[in-house]
């Protein structure tokens, strides 16, 4: 056989190189696994939102109103006038590129439109065409373009491919917050009925029944009682379950995701055990039964509508202040929007821990304290009996959830609690934690199952950092402080690091908590034996 008869390299090569077209000329590819399903008409009707209808993302016809361009441009104009920050973000980007390689979706996919600068450019190009004289004059040369149907489809694809995690904004020298650009982008899409069901259904449920899954009050109480039973099996103690208790000192609000889905349920059991042990005068509420607020992923008006129940319930029950559970975006809403939107909370008192006497001065305005602030203060003042060796089976790392870390600066308290309840704690590399933390890839309503490929791409930088500490320190438990994380990181670890389990801070705290009158505890909250005990029994 002669070598000359073998195919030449160019003959055997199948061309896998993508076409080199500019970003404006590269249409979106609505590939299964990378987009979310549209909002169901019934949910839009519940919320009085525009253009309720059944439609499909992959269809050519999105059943838009005839004058959809006019509606969007009018909405654009209104928001430019209303939000000074938005106007600024449209004008001041100098394309320095500092943000370009900071988005987890870009890092995982290499898709240029996932670079924050280009994601914002999707709006800026239309802004220049319609609201900037220079842009109008120079046309495409200035990076401006018409608002056409392909452009609108691009908006839908990429604004529902941003988790509003704000990592890019940490690096922007001008402080441009791309999450806010995405928020406005989504608001504009909402005006013509382009929304995703994973956002709008929880919003509609929340609006009707107070929580994302639409569980009525008796269903909630049933779930909490279920946890009380499980706790009794594990500890021998029947913990208190105060619900809708008028005159209680504290109202407790937490994301409802932790009521129904493992592993969030174990964190929820942890709260019940801690509050019982303290003898805290507090209450759960079947009305303010949801800490999460998917209004944040819909519009500013929707944030306000859904958030209103928190202060309303605090007022109705006559509590003095509020504690919030382990949460992500909930804390951004409570910390940054609640008081402005639904305050002033002048009927509440400045939060003071009844156990330690500590004044939470940082919460003077909102009257709401994060549970890790509350618990770390208890530990600091020696009010809890803890046996961290019960968690020795776990080699733990901590994922900073985007919103508490970047939007609210809550970085030390969770670590302080963890260091006191486990003996084996390992940080992930510096450029992946604290304000540099990588998103789970499923926040801002993108944590649905149909969007799984995209979640795995976007979550890869986080998973890669977890694999780093797994390989270096044998880490087997990833702790986070957010109900969405507990759900999405579980899937992420299943794919990228199957030997790492996901859990919450108060699950580990409750494992370590020595309770008054508990029987000899052999099992953790998941019903699994504490380290070593199984072997001892066999001897």
């Amino acid at each position, binding site marked *: 056989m002669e070598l*000359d008869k073998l195919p030449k390299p160019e003959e055997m090569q199948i061309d*896998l190189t993508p076409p080199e077209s500019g970003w404006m000329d590269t249409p979106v590819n609505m590939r299964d696994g990378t987009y979310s399903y549209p909002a169901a008409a019934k949910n839009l009707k519940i919320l009085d939102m525009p253009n309720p209808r059944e439609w499909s993302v992959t269809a050519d016809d999105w059943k838009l109103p005839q004058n959809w361009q006019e509606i969007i441009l009018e909405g654009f104009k209104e928001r430019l006038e209303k939000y000074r920050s938005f106007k600024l973000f449209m004008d001041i980007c100098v394309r320095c590129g500092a943000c370009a*390689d900071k988005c987890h979706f870009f890092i*995982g996919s*290499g898709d240029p439109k996932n670079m924050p600068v280009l994601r914002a450019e999707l709006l800026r190009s239309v802004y220049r065409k319609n609201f900037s004289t220079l842009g109008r004059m120079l046309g495409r040369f200035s990076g401006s373009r018409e608002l056409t149907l392909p452009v609108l489809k691009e908006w839908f694809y990429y604004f529902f491919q941003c988790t509003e995690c704000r990592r890019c904004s940490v690096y922007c020298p001008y402080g441009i917050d791309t999450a806010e650009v995405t928020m406005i982008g989504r608001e504009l899409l909402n005006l013509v009925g382009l929304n995703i069901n994973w956002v709008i259904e929880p919003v509609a449920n929340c609006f009707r029944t107070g929580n994302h899954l639409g569980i009525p009050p008796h269903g909630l109480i049933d779930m909490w009682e279920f946890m009380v039973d499980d706790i009794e099996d594990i500890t021998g103690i029947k913990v208190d379950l105060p619900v809708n208790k008028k005159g209680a000192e504290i109202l407790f609000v937490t994301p409802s995701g932790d009521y129904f889905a493992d592993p969030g349920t174990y964190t929820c059991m942890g709260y019940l055990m801690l509050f019982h042990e303290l003898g805290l005068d507090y209450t759960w509420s079947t009305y303010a039964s949801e800490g999460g607020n998917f209004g944040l992923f819909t519009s500013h008006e929707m944030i306000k509508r859904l958030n209103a129940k928190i202060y309303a319930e605090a007022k109705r029950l006559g509590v003095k202040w509020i504690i919030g559970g382990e949460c992500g975006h909930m804390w951004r809403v409570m910390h940054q929007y609640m008081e402005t939107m639904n305050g002033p909370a002048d009927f509440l008192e400045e939060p003071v821990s009844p156990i330690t006497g500590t004044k939470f001065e940082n919460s003077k305005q909102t009257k709401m304290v994060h549970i890790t602030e509350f618990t770390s203060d208890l530990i600091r003042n020696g009010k809890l009996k803890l046996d961290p060796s019960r968690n020795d089976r776990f080699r733990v790392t901590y994922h900073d959830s985007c919103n508490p870390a970047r939007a609210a600066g809550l970085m030390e308290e969770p670590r302080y609690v963890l260091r006191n309840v486990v003996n084996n704690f390992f940080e992930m590399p510096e450029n992946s934690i604290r304000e540099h933390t990588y998103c789970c890839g499923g926040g801002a309503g993108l944590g649905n199952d149909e969007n*799984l490929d995209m979640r795995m791409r976007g979550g890869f930088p986080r998973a890669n950092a977890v694999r780093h500490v797994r390989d270096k320190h044998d880490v087997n438990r990833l702790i986070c402080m957010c109900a969405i994380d507990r759900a999405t990181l579980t899937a992420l670890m299943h794919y990228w690091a199957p030997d790492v389990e996901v859990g919450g801070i108060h699950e580990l705290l409750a494992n370590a908590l020595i309770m008054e009158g508990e029987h000899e505890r052999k099992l953790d909250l998941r019903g699994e034996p504490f380290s070593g005990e199984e072997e001892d029994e066999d001897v």
Partner: protein
Amino acid sequence: MSQTLEHLLLKKRSAILKRWLDLIFDTYPADGRSFFASRRNRIANPVGGAIVDGVDKLFDWLMQGEKSDVRDICVFLDNIVRIRAVQEFSASHSIGFVFFLKHAIRETLDSELRKEQLHEDLLTFESKIDSLALLAFDNYSQCREQLHQIRAAEIRNRTSRLLERACQKYGMPSEW
């Protein structure tokens, strides 16, 4: 003095690997390509890191000849295939990167292969690349299967406690 294919492959190792990497990175859009190819910290550029490490190990494994054990290479192959299985590629595009090595070798060693008449050795070596591609195909299928399992588990887990409680309350079997 005549040279064996093995000698040539080892002598031109870095040029072959560079070409192989270029061909793999060329499957991404321009901005993604330059980012993945950049030598950033592995935490900041995990995709590029996995591909650079991976091709290095895959090449060494192929060079081991008879002694090579499939288990030695599965981790590194998986590190690349697992990423490409969720990126914007079809199945053939996802694992097609393995065949790029043939291209890289023929292109880099073109004149030497002709001069030394090493075509039969090359075919033997290329058969091994074909085996690697089959391993990659298995790996890819496992990844996609796993994604389906994750989807099913997510849907089930979302309301698992609720169903468990309902079953308990109404005397139905709790396993489902």
